[in-house]
Every structure is written in structure tokens, then in C-alpha cells.
């Protein structure tokens, strides 16, 4: 371990050295201010130095042309450096538990900055207004919007907006005015800062950036309400902050402020916010509509998602309305429809790429924060900065307190004091503040002071609060979430309950959120889906869940212990299953079973996991959930299956899950309290809104890997499996499915002594004792596969899907 660490650190330092040497070899020390250019100036004589000039025009053997590649080269090196830093953190995984990643990145940035400073180098000035706002910020925001858990969000949208908008306003105005009061005190020597400038500054530092906080919340699994409010608040207060910033910077340049201006400012705020949303929705719908027709050009499907969101952002910037709102709403609207239209592979690609880009962006920002901290000229003023810190803290706390009091009566689950503490303490500042500080116009006299103060606030909050929030949250024991088990029962009853509530509401004439949701869903089903989705049959989420679980089972079976697909699973196990059926009175007849099997096979098609594991901003959605299943059922298989053996298929899904609990154990105890994402639970349970249904016949899902072909190879009909790589979405609507599991399905599975066999084994089609389980296509992610812990000897198949995706 130490060796690895040393190697990593060594690589890092090596890269640093290369970078610095490259810069240094220019031979001059540029002393431009940071905001000047994107990159350090081109080397003047960076051209060919490799050979002396007095040579005749022989063909040069070795030339070097640095300026040509300089810009992309340096960008790449910086990105690499930051990414190495990220790798390095996980060498000691304990570090990342206690210290949030943003802290670590800033520290590395500080070190690199110190190195650069000592060799009198300038850092690449990436933080020009353009680069940040046009390239880096949209990525971060797109990722936040795309992976937002929609259902909890919409249930709490009022609270979120309340905290974001009113809270930010409260903070900025409060901090601004108190700072202005402080400025009046001559002792601090900052009397030249007028009110507008103070307000501008306070707008900058009231933007909360909860990256670190969300990581901690996720790990500690605080209750969902808190989580979604913090998340949503971050997102929307970026928008509010930018609006305020623009407004105040405009105002700061005006010598006199009149009441009319204030009024116009307020009106402008609404225009900006609502306009942004309108643009976002518009682009979202256009994107969804476009993807309806992309079935022949699957390779470029992800492009549409990115281009349309970016376009939304840019167009909003064009009209100076809130581009952040635009891109968020675009992502939100787009996601739902696009994910139904595009292929599974594109879906995965989109998610991965978004995560990657956002991660890079965020990493770079924090990294540069560290670098720039060392290398800027600071103007330090003890009084101002300390008071800024104090006020930032105080006003946030006050704000949360007051706002919660006002909004608690409107909430079904009010926030208690601990939640409020979590909210208040979780107000870390971050990237947006940093960028905004750097883009302050130079007309402001005390710009350096503001920059310094912003950096101080960011560093303080990120380091102190970021590191201490985890122990504090655990200490005060903020209300944790109730892990809803992903059982069919819970889904069914949840659904039942929602219908009941909606019905009762209709009955007693009361309106509530279900009413609006209901209305929207009707509209959605009737109109929107028809237009925007290519194949708009609806599928109940109960069925989707059921299918998913069954597929997972089938995958498990096929995938475990790859040699173990025996042809003769024990009769005993099947017998047990038969008995354990919950039909007290009647046994399943063979005909019944066959029917069930037929139904299941017909109905299990394109299962795409639409839930997204939100693990914090820097983690990919858990692969387990985006695993695809490509199922192609061969008619021959079905024929080869005998009626008697069909019990397997329908039993597998049923029994696999729950029988293996050792007696007396509760279900909860079998699940380690490992990370589960909120998005998972809630997306799964109620993604598609409750009356909508969607069934997908004839659209085989597609898997993306081929590793687990191994178990399949023994099975007769698998010659076709390799060929399913062809993008044949529009394969016939017969029931065909090729079975592919995903590659990283590498969890250890206890080899099952008795396996209900995959029905793909044609050769055994005739054996009566061959219990061919017709493996319903499923691709349970490894994490879903039940951990061996609850594998009993008797019912190997019957494993509870383990809801612990293997997170990093």
C-alpha cells in the first residue's frame, strides 16, 4: 500500500515538474495579471532549437514545435494532473471518509501553487469569465439537473424554491447590509466600499455549494427531505446568485440608485427566472422530439442530449436570462422522454459522459482554487474578512431558522431542529463564488480585497465545516431515512395508497399535490407521450419493478458459478417452491404454470433501469442500474421447455427473493446499511407516474458487454449471442431475446448446488428431470445479486436481491 502511494505521489510530482519546467523553459517571467489570457503566452522562440542555425537546408532530423500544441497540451496536462490527484486520494480510502474531496483537491492545488510560485510561474488563467461560465459551469449544472431525483424534488419543490430564492436573498441582503455597517467603522479602513459594492460582494458569497455536504449526507443517509432540500437549494441558488450578481454589478456601476431601479430589478428577476425555465422546457421538448426519430442513427444520440442542453444554456446567455435554470429544466424535461427513446447504450453513454465532464469541471475548479490562492496578490484586511466569515455564518443560521418556521406549517413532514442544523451547517461555499469573485469588474476599487475575502470564506467553510460536518451529523443523529425495501409489496402498497389518497381527495373535494400530479400525468399520457416518445405504450411501474426483479434473478442464476448450470437441478428445490406457494387451496397445474411462463416471457422485454444512484457529484450512477439486458428468446427454447418445468420460470421470480431468509431473521438485517441512493428508491418505486403505463413489446433491451458469455457458452443456443452486438433495435416483435450479462458482474456468488437451469440448454430439452428454468432475461447488477449471506442450502435460487450496489 505504501509503495503504491509513493508511486502515485511520485508520478504526481513528476508531472508537476514537467509542467513547471515547460513553463519555465520559456525563459521569461510573464507578469500579467491572471485574468489576462487563457494560457501563458506563447514561447517566443519556442520553435526549433534542436539544431544550430548555421546549417544549410538539410532535412532536419529532429524538430520540436512547441507553440503549435501548447494550448491543448497544457490543458491536457492540467486536467491529467487534477485527475491524478483524484486517483491519489483513494489510495487511502479512509481519507475520503473524513475529508471531503473538495478539501483534498484544494490542498493539492495549494501545493502545486506553492511550487509554481516558488519558481515564479503564473498559473494558467482558466478562470476568465468566459471559460468558466461557458465551459465549466454548464457541465456541472447539467449533471446536477440530469441526475436530480425527480419525484422527491417535485414533492418538495415549494420548500426548495423557498429556501433557494428567499434564503439567498435574505443572506445576500443581510450580509451586505451588515458589512456596510462594519465598513462605517473607521478602524477597519474600508470606508471606501459603498453599499452597492457590499451588496455585490455579499451576493457572491451567499451562493452555497453543497458538494461536500451531499457526499456526507449520502454516506450518512440522512432523511430524504433534508437531502433533497439541500440539493435543490444548491441548484437553484446558483441561478439566483448569478442573477443577483448581474443585477448588483450593474447597479454598482451606477452612481445613484433610484427606487425605480429596485423595482425594475425585481421584475427582471422574475423575467430571468421564468424565462430561463421556459427556454429550458422548450429545448427539452425539442430534444425529446428529436430523439424520437433517431432510431437509425444510434451512435449520435448522446450528442443530441448534450447539444440541446448546451444550446439552451447559450441561448439563455444570449438573452441574459438565467442560463442555469434553462439548462436544469432542459435536463429535467428531456431526461424522462429521451431515456425512453434512445437505446440502452446511448443512455449509458449519456450518463457516463455527463458524470465525467462534470467531474472534470469540478475538479479543475477546486484545483485552481488552490493554485490561485497562492499565486494571486492578496489584499488582506483582518476586520473585513473576519466579519465576513462571521456574518456569513450567522445570517445563514438565522435565515434557515426563520425560513423554516415560516414554511414548516406547509409541509407534511416538518423540519425539526436537527434538520435545520444540518441545513445551516451545510452551507459551504464553493465553485460559483470563486468564479464570480474572479469575474468582478475591475472598476471596483477593492476588487482584490473581495477576492481575498471570497477565497478566505471558501477555504474556511470547505475545510472547517466540510471536515466537521460528518461527525457532527452523526453525533446529533439527524433523522435518517427509512430504507424502503424494494419489494413488490411495498411498491404495490405504495401505489395502492396513492390511488386511495387521490380517490379520497376527489371524494372529499380537497386538493393536494396528488391532484396536480394526477392532472399532469393525464396530460402527459394523453398528449405528451404520444408526441415525444416513439413507442408510447405505458407500463406500470409495478410491472417494471417486477420484471426487473425477475430478470435479476435470472441473471443471478445464470451468472453464478459459471460452471454450475447443471442439467438436473434438484427436484427437491422445486418441490419446495411448489409447496411454498401461497396458495393454500390449490396446487399449480402444469397448464397454469405454462401459462404463467408464457406471460412472463412475453412481457419481459426492455427493462431499463431508470433509477439513478445519486452518490454525490463525483460518482457515476451505479453501473448496476444501468445494466441492460438483451434478451432474445428463441422460439425453439420455448418449445423445448416442457410444461412441467415451467414452474421454474414463474417460481423463480417469486421464490428467489424471499425464501432464503434463515428463519427468524428479519429482512432488514440482511441488508447492510450500505449506501443506497435516494434516487434509486424513489425512482424505482414511482418513476412513471402512477396511472401511466408503458409496455414495450418487440424492443429488446440491449446489453453492453459480453463477458458473461462464459456460462452461456455451454448452452446450445448461444451461437447467436455474439451477433447481438449489432444494433438491431428494430428487431422483430417476436419474442426474441438474447441474453447477455454485463461484464463486471463479478461479485462472489456462492455456487449453488442446485441450480434451476437455464432453459437455453437445448440439449436437455427432453429430460423430464431437467428443470429448465427458463431464465427470464435479467441483468441484475452485481450489487443486486444477493450476497451469499442469505443463501441457504436449500433454496439456492431464492435469494434476496441485495440492494447494495458495490460502490467505490
Amino acid at each position: 500500500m505504501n509503495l503504491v502511494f509513493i508511486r502515485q505521489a511520485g508520478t504526481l510530482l513528476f508531472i508537476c515538474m514537467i509542467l513547471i519546467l515547460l513553463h519555465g523553459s520559456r525563459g521569461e517571467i510573464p507578469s500579467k495579471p491572471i485574468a489576462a489570457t487563457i494560457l501563458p503566452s506563447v514561447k517566443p522562440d519556442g520553435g526549433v532549437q534542436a539544431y544550430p542555425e548555421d546549417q544549410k537546408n538539410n532535412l532536419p532530423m529532429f524538430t520540436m514545435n512547441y507553440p503549435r500544441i501548447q494550448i491543448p497540451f497544457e490543458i491536457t496536462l492540467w486536467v491529467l494532473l487534477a485527475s491524478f490527484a483524484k486517483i491519489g486520494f483513494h489510495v487511502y480510502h479512509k481519507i475520503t471518509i473524513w475529508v471531503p474531496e473538495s478539501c483534498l483537491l484544494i490542498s493539492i492545488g495549494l501545493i502545486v501553487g506553492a511550487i509554481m510560485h516558488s519558481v515564479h510561474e503564473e498559473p494558467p488563467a482558466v478562470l476568465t469569465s468566459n471559460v468558466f461560465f461557458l465551459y465549466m459551469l454548464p457541465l456541472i449544472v447539467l449533471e446536477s439537473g440530469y441526475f436530480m431525483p425527480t419525484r422527491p424534488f417535485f414533492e418538495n419543490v415549494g420548500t426548495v424554491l423557498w429556501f433557494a430564492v428567499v434564503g439567498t436573498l435574505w443572506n445576500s441582503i443581510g450580509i451586505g447590509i451588515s458589512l456596510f455597517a462594519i465598513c462605517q467603522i473607521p478602524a477597519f479602513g474600508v470606508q471606501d466600499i459603498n453599499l452597492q459594492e457590499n451588496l455585490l460582494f455579499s451576493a457572491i458569497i451567499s451562493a452555497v455549494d453543497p458538494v461536500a455536504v451531499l457526499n456526507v449526507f449520502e454516506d450518512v443517509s440522512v432523511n430524504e427531505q433534508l437531502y433533497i432540500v439541500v440539493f435543490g437549494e444548491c441548484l437553484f441558488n446558483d441561478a439566483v446568485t448569478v442573477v443577483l450578481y448581474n443585477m448588483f454589478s450593474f447597479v454598482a456601476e451606477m452612481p445613484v440608485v433610484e427606487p425605480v431601479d429596485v423595482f425594475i430589478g425585481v421584475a427582471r428577476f422574475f423575467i430571468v427566472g421564468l424565462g430561463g425555465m421556459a427556454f429550458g422546457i422548450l429545448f427539452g421538448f425539442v430534444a425529446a422530439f428529436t430523439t424520437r426519430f433517431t432510431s437509425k442513427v444510434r451512435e449520435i444520440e448522446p450528442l443530441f442530449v448534450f447539444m440541446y442542453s448546451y444550446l439552451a444554456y447559450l441561448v439563455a446567455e444570449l438573452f441574459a436570462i438565467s442560463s442555469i435554470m434553462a439548462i436544469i429544466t432542459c435536463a429535467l424535461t428531456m431526461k424522462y422522454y429521451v431515456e425512453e427513446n434512445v437505446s440502452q447504450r446511448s443512455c449509458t453513454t449519456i450518463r457516463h459522459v455527463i458524470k465525467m465532464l462534470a467531474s472534470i469541471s469540478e475538479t479543475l475548479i477546486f484545483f485552481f482554487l488552490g493554485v490561485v490562492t497562492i499565486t494571486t496578490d492578496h489584499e488582506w484586511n483582518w476586520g473585513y474578512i473576519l466579519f465576513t466569515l462571521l456574518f456569513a455564518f450567522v445570517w445563514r443560521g438565522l435565515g434557515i431558522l426563520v425560513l423554516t418556521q415560516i414554511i414548516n406549517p406547509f409541509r407534511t413532514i416538518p423540519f425539526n431542529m436537527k434538520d435545520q442544523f444540518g441545513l445551516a451547517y451545510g452551507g459551504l461555499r464553493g465553485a460559483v463564488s470563486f468564479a464570480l469573485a474572479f469575474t468582478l469588474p475591475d472598476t471596483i476599487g477593492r476588487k482584490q480585497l473581495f477576492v481575498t475575502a471570497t477565497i478566505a470564506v471558501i477555504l474556511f467553510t470547505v475545510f472547517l465545516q466540510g471536515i466537521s460536518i460528518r461527525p457532527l451529523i452523526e453525533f446529533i443523529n439527524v433523522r435518517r431515512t427509512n430504507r424502503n425495501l424494494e419489494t413488490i409489496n411495498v411498491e404495490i402498497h405504495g401505489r395502492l395508497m396513492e390511488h386511495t389518497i387521490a380517490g379520497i381527495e376527489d371524494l372529499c373535494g380537497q386538493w393536494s399535490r396528488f391532484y396536480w400530479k394526477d392532472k399532469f400525468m393525464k396530460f402527459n399520457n394523453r398528449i405528451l407521450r404520444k408526441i415525444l416518445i416513439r413507442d408510447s405504450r405505458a407500463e406500470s411501474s409495478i410491472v417494471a419493478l417486477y420484471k426487473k426483479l425477475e430478470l435479476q434473478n435470472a441473471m443471478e442464476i445464470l451468472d453464478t458459478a459459471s460452471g454450475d448450470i447443471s442439467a438436473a437441478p434438484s427436484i427437491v428445490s422445486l418441490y419446495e417452491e411448489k409447496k411454498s406457494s401461497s396458495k393454500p387451496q390449490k396446487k399449480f397445474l402444469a397448464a397454469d404454470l405454462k401459462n404463467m411462463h408464457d406471460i412472463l416471457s412475453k412481457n419481459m422485454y426492455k427493462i431499463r433501469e431508470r433509477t439513478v444512484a445519486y452518490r454525490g457529484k463525483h460518482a457515476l450512477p451505479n453501473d448496476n442500474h444501468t445494466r441492460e439486458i438483451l434478451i432474445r428468446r428463441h422460439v425453439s427454447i420455448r418449445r423445448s421447455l416442457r410444461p412441467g418445468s415451467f414452474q421454474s420460470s414463474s417460481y423463480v421470480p417469486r421464490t428467489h427473493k424471499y425464501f432464503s431468509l434463515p428463519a427468524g431473521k428479519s429482512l432488514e438485517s440482511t441488508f447492510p446499511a450500505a449506501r443506497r441512493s435516494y434516487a434509486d428508491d424513489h425512482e424505482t418505486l414511482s418513476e412513471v407516474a402512477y396511472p401511466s403505463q408503458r409496455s414495450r413489446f418487440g424492443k429488446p433491451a440491449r446489453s453492453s458487454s459480453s463477458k458473461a458469455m462464459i456460462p452461456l457458452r455451454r448452452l446450445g443456443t448461444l451461437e447467436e449471442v455474439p451477433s447481438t452486438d449489432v444494433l438491431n433495435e428494430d428487431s422483430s416483435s417476436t419474442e426474441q431475446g438474447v441474453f447477455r450479462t454485463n461484464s463486471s458482474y463479478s461479485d462472489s456468488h456462492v455456487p449453488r448446488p442446485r441450480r434451476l437451469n437455464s432453459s437455453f440448454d437445448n440439449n436437455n430439452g427432453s429430460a423430464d428431470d431437467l428443470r429448465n428454468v427458463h431464465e427470464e432475461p435479467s441483468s441484475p447488477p452485481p450489487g443486486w445479486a444477493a450476497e451469499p449471506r442469505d443463501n441457504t442450502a436449500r433454496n439456492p435460487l431464492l435469494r434476496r436481491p441485495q440492494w447494495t450496489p458495490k460502490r467505490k
Partner: protein
Amino acid sequence: MGALQSLPGRPEYSDLAEKTGFSFEQIGVLHKRFKQLSHNEETLRRDHFNEIHDLAFNPIRAQIIEAFFDRRNFHQDGEGKVQEIGFEEFVVVMSHFRPPSDHMTEEQREKTRREKLRFLFNMHDTDNDGTITLEEYRHVVEELLSRSGTLEKETAKCIADAAMLEVASISVGHMEPDEFYEGITFEHFLKLLDGFEIESRMTIRFLNMDTTTLCK
């Protein structure tokens, strides 16, 4: 509220308020709605419910309506169904959906939770034998999925079967090969939905304002 003049006087309300926990205004509003639904008669019958337009789209409409006529929901140990209900029973059934108030003790919360779960349980258990058998469960699932036109009955059946097995494994744990699982009792039901925060989710925000004029 001027409308109160024609409604039962205050003493009855206070009775009801105490029993169900609604406030006076809320009871007043509910009474107005009752009158509206029942066309000013004294009792509600099933056909009155069938007239509610919005309810027609609800897949489990039948169960919801039945729930109102089910004596088990009337807070007594009644059984069986009635044909018509008065205002008091109406309010009592509604009270199952009240949100838990802040000042509840743990015990009261538990009690509320049990009540709500009992309500759901009664919706399933139509033959009133205290257990939800496979048939009943299937029926419910079929109803729930009845909106999905392409889905056949068999799927609903399979899903119900799967769910039953799930319950079996949760409640009974490991089962012997020759055991049968008779049906979901209320205790099993409780255990099943243990993690389900029903007390906060199964709530309706009863308004103090009269919105009946806005609804059909």
C-alpha cells in the same frame, strides 16, 4: 361560516371533533361536501359515490368506495358492510387520512400507523376473515394494473403470487417444504410495511377552506 346554520349544531361537532381529531372548520367543510355528494339527503349510498366524476379514473375505485361502507373502518369492532352511511361514519373514515400532528407521542404515532395500515388491510381483505388470501391479493393487483391495457390478467396473477411469497418469506422466514402459507394476517402486514413511512405518506391535507365549489 354561514353555512353552519343548517348543519348539526356545535355539540355534535365537538363530539366528532374529539373522536376524529378534525377541527371544527374542517368538519364543517366535510359536511358541506357530504351534503353535496348526497344531494342533501341524510345518508350516502354507493350510487352517490359513483357519480363523482374524477373518481371514475381511479383504478381502485371500487375498493375505495367499499371502504366507506365497511363497518370495520368505523372505529368499532364492527364487521360486515352497510348500505348507507351517515355523516358521522363519513368523517370517521376520512379521519384515517389525517396527518399526524406534531405533538404526538410515540405511542400515538404507532397507533395512527396501525390505524392507517388497518385501513389498507381492510381494503384488501374483502371477505373479512382477518387474512388476505392469495385470491384477494390477486384481485387487488389486477385492479391496480387494470389501466395497463396490454397487460393480461396472468401477469397480475404472477405478480400477486410473487408478492405473496415475499410476504411469506418476510413473516414466516424459512418455510418447511410442506407448509402452506395461509394468508397475510394483520401482523404480517405490519411487518411487511415496516419501513414504509405510512403515517406521513398516507395523509391528506384537510383544508379549512371550502373548496367544494371548485370540484365537481
